[in-house]
């Protein structure tokens, strides 16, 4: 059953690439395909949520992978829907030709494919391969615009992520090595079999292995100070792609790290070591991101840095651990991807309307594009953790964890930085939304269709702010149990 979720996007990618210049058809295929992908994905998600896990040998899904799958297909679909008007506008403004549009959709599907591969592979080696593959595929999407800046971004993205990834491979090897004495020669690298013997794995192998994995996948997840490629790549790629990169890809990398974290929690080493590192890197990312958010001049980079900030929050959450920490971390993965997608879509509209990424040159969005403006405001309030939006819930959970565990200093640091970020971020956005628009800027949204996914996302984060559906809540509790957060 899981193969289907891998084959489908591959097929769709092929179709898109083959259809070539028949743009309308490509768009139809993409949206329909993404829709079916969504349905299929949701089916798998629901199945894992109530069966606990779906084990098909090399393919394996538990609720954790289910959560990831949910994020991938949901954001994937919305990004696909948003891409249609976005790409049309790019085409009309002579940025890209029809051939490249087909190529864009094709690679978008390949990108989704690789990310799905990350979360459904049982074999940690496969996970590594998949993560590397995401880099290679998305490189073309990042460099899509073929401008000097986007090429530079792509190059940095490729080199830095590849180096990180190869460190992750080294880490994986050590984990594997730690399992050899127990499982014997040629033991498969399966997550399930490793978990089975987690209690007997050798600590010093695990330690060095986890450090390498954390740095490796951490690079991909955008943990400071390995984050350096992220603002470039996320700000240079087309907005829908940015949404996928920030909202989904980072989570996938984090997912890979957390798999090892779980392994360590159940190993004789205990979770303390890995949690400590996660907390350290989390706080580092939070602080550094805050600094850049304050001094930022480019609103897409602003969003990119905010992604670093939120990855920081997620890893702080798992660093604090305990019921609230893990609950918060998991919930934050979902909330952040929803909110960040909303913001990148909004940023896309602004970019296409004003033709600049400079915060200082964008004024009076409220006058020119009232709906986009409203959604932007909602999104930024949400991303900075104001209630009644969902991120507030997860952030307060993380804070609760910190205080509950008695990690007072980090907790206070965390909340202080969040306040500063709030101030800075809102400062930028409010400047953009209010005031008088520049001369000769005609009113009107870029497209109605582009607003749809944004409205969906806004509704989602508003509802999630107070109310978490039981099925999701239960699944999260199971995952927390997986992290040993309930004991």
């Amino acid at each position, binding site marked *: 059953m899981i193969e289907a979720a891998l084959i489908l996007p591959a097929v769709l990618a092929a179709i898109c690439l083959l259809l070539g210049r028949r743009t309308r058809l490509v768009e139809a295929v993409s949206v329909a395909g993404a829709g079916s992908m969504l349905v299929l994905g949701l089916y798998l998600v629901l199945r894992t949520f109530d069966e606990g896990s779906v084990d098909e040998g090399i393919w394996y899904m538990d609720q954790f992978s289910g959560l990831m799958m949910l994020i991938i297909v949901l954001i994937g679909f919305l990004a696909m829907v948003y891409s249609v008007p976005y790409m049309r506008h790019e085409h009309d403004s002579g940025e890209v030709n029809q051939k490249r549009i087909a190529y864009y959709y094709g690679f978008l599907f390949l990108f989704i494919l690789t990310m799905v591969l990350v979360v459904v592979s049982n074999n940690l080696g496969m996970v590594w391969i998949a993560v590397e593959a995401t880099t290679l595929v998305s490189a073309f999407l990042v460099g899509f615009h073929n401008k000097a800046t986007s090429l530079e971004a792509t190059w*940095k993205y490729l*080199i*830095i992520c590849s*180096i*990180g990834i190869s*460190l992750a491979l080294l880490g994986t090897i050590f984990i594997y090595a730690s399992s050899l004495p127990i499982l014997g020669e040629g033991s498969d690298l399966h997550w399930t079999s490793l978990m089975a013997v987690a209690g007997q794995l050798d600590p010093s192998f695990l*330690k*060095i292995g986890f*450090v*390498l994995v954390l*740095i490796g996948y951490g*690079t991909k997840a955008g943990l400071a*100070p*390995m984050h*350096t*490629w992220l*603002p470039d790549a996320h700000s240079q790629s087309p907005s829908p792609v940015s949404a996928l990169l920030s909202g989904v890809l980072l989570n996938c990398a984090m997912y890979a790290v957390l798999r090892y974290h779980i392994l360590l929690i159940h190993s004789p080493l205990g979770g303390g070591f890995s949690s400590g590192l996660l907390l350290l890197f989390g706080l580092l990312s939070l*602080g*550094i991101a*805050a*600094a*850049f958010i*304050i*001094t930022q001049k480019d609103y897409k980079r602003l969003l990119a840095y905010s992604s670093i900030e939120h990855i920081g929050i997620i890893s702080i959450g798992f660093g604090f651990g305990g019921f609230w920490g893990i*609950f918060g971390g998991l919930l934050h993965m979902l909330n952040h991807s929803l909110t960040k997608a909303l913001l990148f879509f909004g940023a896309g509209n602004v970019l296409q309307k004003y033709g600049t990424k400079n915060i200082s040159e964008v004024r009076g969005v*409220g006058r020119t594009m009232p709906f986009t403006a409203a959604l932007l405001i909602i999104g930024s*309030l949400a991303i900075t953790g*104001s*209630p*009644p939006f969902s991120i*507030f*819930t997860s952030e*307060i*959970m993380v*804070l*609760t964890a910190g*205080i*509950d565990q008695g990690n007072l200093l980090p*907790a*206070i640091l965390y*909340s*202080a930085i*969040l*306040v*500063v970020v*709030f*101030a800075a971020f*809102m*400062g930028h956005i*409010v*400047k953009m939304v*209010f*005031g*008088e628009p520049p001369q000769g800027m005609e009113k009107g949204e870029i497209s109605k269709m582009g607003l749809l996914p944004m409205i969906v996302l806004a509704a989602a984060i508003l509802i999630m*702010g*107070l*109310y*978490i559906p*039981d099925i999701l*809540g239960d699944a999260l509790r199971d995952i927390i149990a997986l992290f040993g957060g309930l004991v």
Partner: protein
Amino acid sequence: MLVDLLFATLIFIPLLGAVIAAVLNGRPKASVRVAFTVSSISSLLGVAITILVFWQGQMRWELPFASPFGSLSFTIDALAAFFLGTISVVTFAVSLYSFGYADHYEGKYPVGMLGAMFNIFYVSMVMVVSSSNAILFLIMWETMSLSSFFLVIFEHRHEGTVGSGLFYLIMTHIGTAAIGLGFLLTYAQSGSFDFSSFPGAAQGMSDLLRSALFLLWAVGFGAKAGIIPLHVWLPRAHPAAPSNVSALMSAVMVKTAIYMLIRCYFDFLGVQDPWWGMTILAIGCVSALLGVMYALIESDIKRMLAFSTVENIGIILIALGVAMVFESYGLNELAALAMIACLMHVLSHALFKSLLFMGAGSVLNATHTKNMEKLGGLAKRMPYTSAMFFVGALSAAAIPPLSGFISEWLIFQAMLQSFNIPETMVKILIPVALGTLAITGALAAAAFLKVFGITFLARPRSKDAQEAKEVPKSMLWGMGLMATLCVLVGVLSFTILPALDQVSSPLVGASIADSLVEGIEIVPTVGEFSQVSPPLIAIVLVTVMAAVLMLSQVYGGRGKIVKADTWDCGTPLTARTEYSGRGFSNPINRMFSWVYRPIRTFRARKHPSPYIRTEMRYTSTTEPVFEKYLYGPTEAAVRWVAKKVSVIQTGSIQTYLGYIFVVLVLLLVVLRF
């Protein structure tokens, strides 16, 4: 049960109304009508609930769905009910007022949004005082801040408006962070987010933790209440907002902070260390004195009113502080007295401040300026508005027997009881506070005399003021209601105080209702210490007045009243020769120049006319002390750090790879040990 139903409706209709109003944005008239009808209805419901709760005891209501933070429940006990009532009454009057007020935004700004946000603002305030789950509270608290933020920046094309709104948002967010930390620290002890579990948890806390909570909450709620030095947002945001919103913000929103302070200190923590009370008392004194001083020299009506809000919050905190001191020494009766005084001032300030802001709004509406140097002579052109504003000013200046006077009288009485305190040091300090309060009272009188005298009396100082017309009926109704209440609450205070005792007794653990009121007399303390009887004062004043009038007519000779010019020493009087507001407050400005630190500049220019040799220009502005010495440097420091950090993003890929290399090596080495 009936109350639950009412409460559910109270919450539901405004949300619905907000949506409708937003949808009808295209048709301003309709959307205004919908929005404010809804808000007035639901505020009436609020009053009803208050009465029911006082009558039947507390109500509890839960949201129908579970949340990870436990049941999202609302509890309305006497304390909450009192604040709910205050909020609702004010909101009702302001809603009436808004029918007329909102019109003048038509075509300029999206009126529908105003109506929508107004309703959300009201609901969030209600939920803030009623929610009994820490997280739910935080959510509502921020919702209140956000909705008020959007209302503040409603006129966002005025330059400066968005800036002040943003400043407000950030300040209140800082406050929320402090509050949240406090709650979570309590949660770590209690293991539940429900307020009902907090008091128990506080018992087991170490003194250090309790003090930490005290300070966190003082800062958090203080930022919202506008205590000095966290007040800076207040005189920027309140004037920037539409006047009906300023009325709500100044009159009731800041009170939600007071509510939470009482809740946290008396209900959750339980007051034990005297220094808590003294701290609050000190904060109160500073806020009251500086607040009124800045109010006095302000010539923008709404800013002046905003500063006066700072002052009154100070007075309220003085009363609260005294209550806490008494409580900490186990003098519960006296604590009850001080607490009642505090609540009474909360009520009366809510009444007269909303009235005054509505008045200011009417003036602004009729003359398009809130700078009193351009006004004057409105008493003739806007008789009703001026009359009601006058009542508000009298009440704010604590003229007997209006509501403002009664509350101040009670506070004085409470402070005079300080001789019962065993600690001599405290005994000595409280009279100092008493002196501060007395000065504050006198300065407040001067301030309100100025704002009324300069704005409404004498000759108009500008064309706008010349052509001012009386405002529409609905606005007058709103103000009229408040004006009547200002008088009634004062005169009939002896009927209200028992209810306030019902609020305070569970908090301070003593009820003084039976001794507090004797017939129509208020006898604050046991024994013959002192008493006052507002209704009798009223009667005496009226009868004497009548007598004076009659006698002076009968025996005062046949002299009639002749209209004539003001004595002008021979030169025709113009607006320029009138006494200006700035001039009025100048003596005090010079007397307290060490507070105002005025920046004076002289400019002399050669004048063409042979008779006038040189013309002198004189400007005098007050130094914004807190901005200059507190907020400016803080922001600069943060930016400096950020700048220093952001050099790491050099753009060179080699550097970036270097980071990874270094991190790897470091971790490996660390791991080795």
